[in-house]
């Protein structure tokens, strides 16, 4: 190994270790983001998860069919049944006190008039009443209303089927409909290559996302050291000694690559051990060795892209302030459009197309291919190819900028 390169690596590592604030930012910032965003987006990433909105049912009928409806609603699981009673006033009070968000009132004769809502005696059946907290979003009100309608339809159909069966002497499932257990009629399933893989969780989405974001933030320490070198004449001295610029860049690549890999290890540990302490699911890495290797290859490719980008920004910027602004803003933009800050799947279609331009999106896609879809190296090639091309282009531009700057002097 070249002793010059070794000296450059050692110098860069010591300089970086002495930059405690920079290091703290590189490791603490993504840890906090992972914890906060994993908790904030926990429900958005888990199909069929319950919504943290509670409701109660005032059952004025107390019939087997009203009980069947309540059972159906419970099965829906999206909203939390807090209470079941016959006291309408108490339910209203709890709504006013903010203890719950929705109250469903089942009227008397609910069961007897279930199959004849229009009425056979000239008077229509009394409707179900939904009391709502006005602060509850219209979307959630509508979602609950739809859930009630679905449950009502199911109970009605069940009762109709049962009655028709009895009438025509068809085989009927034993037991009253109220006591019957219904199988899950809709099941969510993530499409992936490995049938034993688990569904993606918020932590599996957020750990790689914020790891990528943190990796790209090496732009701050890289550029701050580089600008010191340029301003203090150290680069000039190195050139006078005969150290080529590409060797100076190579001297920065490895130390910051190692920092990125340490970030990866720390963020994975945060996902596995720290996130569960805050009530979310622990990060599950792929268990098979080839997939772990793929995970690391993606991490390495993201790191190369991040450090190369940082070197380009450092070559472009004339002052530390410029580097902080250019590097920081570009990272935030890449993160925003790349599905780091806002998950890509909730973006409008046009924004999702724009996301394809962000190197952070390429990295996230690579991690998702490994972690969520258990893809092969072939599946990873588009993401890896883009990241490596970005890294090579950034390094080439950094070297060209340096040559141009020298040429301007001559």
């Amino acid at each position, binding site marked *: 190994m070249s*002793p*010059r390169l*070794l*000296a*450059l690596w*050692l*110098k860069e590592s*010591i*300089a970086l270790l*002495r*930059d405690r604030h920079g290091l703290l930012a590189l490791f603490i910032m993504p840890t906090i983001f992972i914890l906060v965003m994993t908790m904030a987006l926990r429900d958005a990433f888990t199909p069929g998860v319950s919504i943290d909105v509670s409701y109660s049912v005032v059952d004025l009928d107390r019939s087997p069919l009203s009980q069947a409806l309540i059972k159906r609603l419970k099965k829906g699981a999206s909203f939390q049944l807090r209470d079941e009673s016959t006291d309408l006033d108490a339910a209203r009070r709890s709504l006013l006190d903010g203890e719950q968000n929705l109250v469903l009132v089942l009227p008397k004769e609910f069961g007897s008039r279930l199959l004849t809502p229009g009425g056979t005696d000239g008077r229509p059946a009394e409707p179900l009443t939904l009391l709502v907290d006005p602060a509850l979003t219209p979307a959630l009100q509508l979602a609950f209303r739809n859930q009630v309608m679905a449950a009502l339809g199911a109970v009605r159909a069940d009762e109709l089927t049962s009655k028709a069966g009895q009438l025509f002497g068809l085989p009927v499932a034993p037991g009253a409909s109220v006591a019957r257990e219904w199988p899950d009629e809709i099941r969510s399933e993530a499409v992936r290559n490995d049938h034993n893989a688990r569904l993606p969780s918020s932590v599996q989405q957020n750990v790689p996302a914020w790891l990528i974001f943190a990796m790209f933030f090496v732009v701050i320490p890289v550029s701050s050291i580089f600008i*010191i*070198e340029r*301003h*203090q*004449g*150290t680069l*000039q*001295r*190195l*050139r*006078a*000694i*005969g*150290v080529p610029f590409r060797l100076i860049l190579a001297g920065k690549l490895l130390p910051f690559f190692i920092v990125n890999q340490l970030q990866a290890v720390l963020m994975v540990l945060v996902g596995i051990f720290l996130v569960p302490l805050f009530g979310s699911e622990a990060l599950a890495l792929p268990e098979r060795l080839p997939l772990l290797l793929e995970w690391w290859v993606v991490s390495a490719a993201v790191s190369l892209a991040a450090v190369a980008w940082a070197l380009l920004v450092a070559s472009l910027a004339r002052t530390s302030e410029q580097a902080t602004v250019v590097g920081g803003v570009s990272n935030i933009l890449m993160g925003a459009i790349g599905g780091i800050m806002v998950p890509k799947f909730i973006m409008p279609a046009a924004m999702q197309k724009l996301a394809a331009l962000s190197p952070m999106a390429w990295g996230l896609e690579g991690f998702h291919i490994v972690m969520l879809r258990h893809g092969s190296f072939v599946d990873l090639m588009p993401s890896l190819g883009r990241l490596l091309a970005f890294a090579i282009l950034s390094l080439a531009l950094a070297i060209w900028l340096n040559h141009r700057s020298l*040429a*301007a*002097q*001559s």
Partner: protein
Amino acid sequence: MLRIDGVSYRYRNTDAPALRDISLAIPAGGVYGLLGPNGAGKTTLISLLAGLLTAGLGEISLDGQPLAVARAENPRAIALVPQDYAFYPMLTVSENLRFFAGVLGLSAAEQKTQSAAAIAFARLEQVVGKRADQLSGGLRRRLNLAIGLLGRPQLLLLDEPTVGVDPQSRHFLLDAIAALPAAGTSVIYTSHYMEEVEAICPQIAIIDQGQVLVDGALSDLLRSPEPLLELTLDRPLPAELGERYAARQEGALKYCLELPSTAALPRLLDELAAAACTVHQLNLGQHNLEQVFMQLTKRSLRD
């Protein structure tokens, strides 16, 4: 011996060349002073010698070999000590020395011995474990110099190495630099401090507007057949006298006159008396370097 033959250099997108047909012969084994006002072309010339720029016209040779060839054969032959503190503030003194010894390509054993020698030369023993950004200005200058000496260069280019240091550090640095030729390192020394150059440079060149105005032995430059007279008067020197004696105004009522001979002094004093000028101070002697420099480069501000 470093020879510079007819070297010209023009920066891209500029009209005037930074250097015009510069020719100098810089003998080995001494401290050579390179003087000039701001923008004269000193830094451009130093950059050419350090290999940071390549001459457009002319040739530079070191011991008879073209500079590029000499540098390729021995990359450590010429070392540059820039005016800036060209080291890493977050590294300690010893880490800086080890780093620069490493990028010079020295072996591990050489790194150790050369670092120790540089530390001893610059008297940095007490601060080897201290971060460079915690050093005083004088210690930083000494570290800057020590790094330049790591490769035991044949020629050391010093660009204003005493800027911003206290008198003690300055004297230490000057003594240290003056001792370098005896250790086998020739020095090209640029400075704005004329008394420094007078103290340690037996040979000098003064350049301005990219041209060599004068070069040679310092003693020859200071020796003048005409005595130099410094006068401080109570009123302005009459124009006629100023013209006759090539007077330069050096202060409000302070003038420097060139007499054809010492015998001309009584006549001048009579003429001053006739013009009702009272002489407050009179000093008859030789030129000093600052006077020569100012005479050659004129008094106009350069930036």
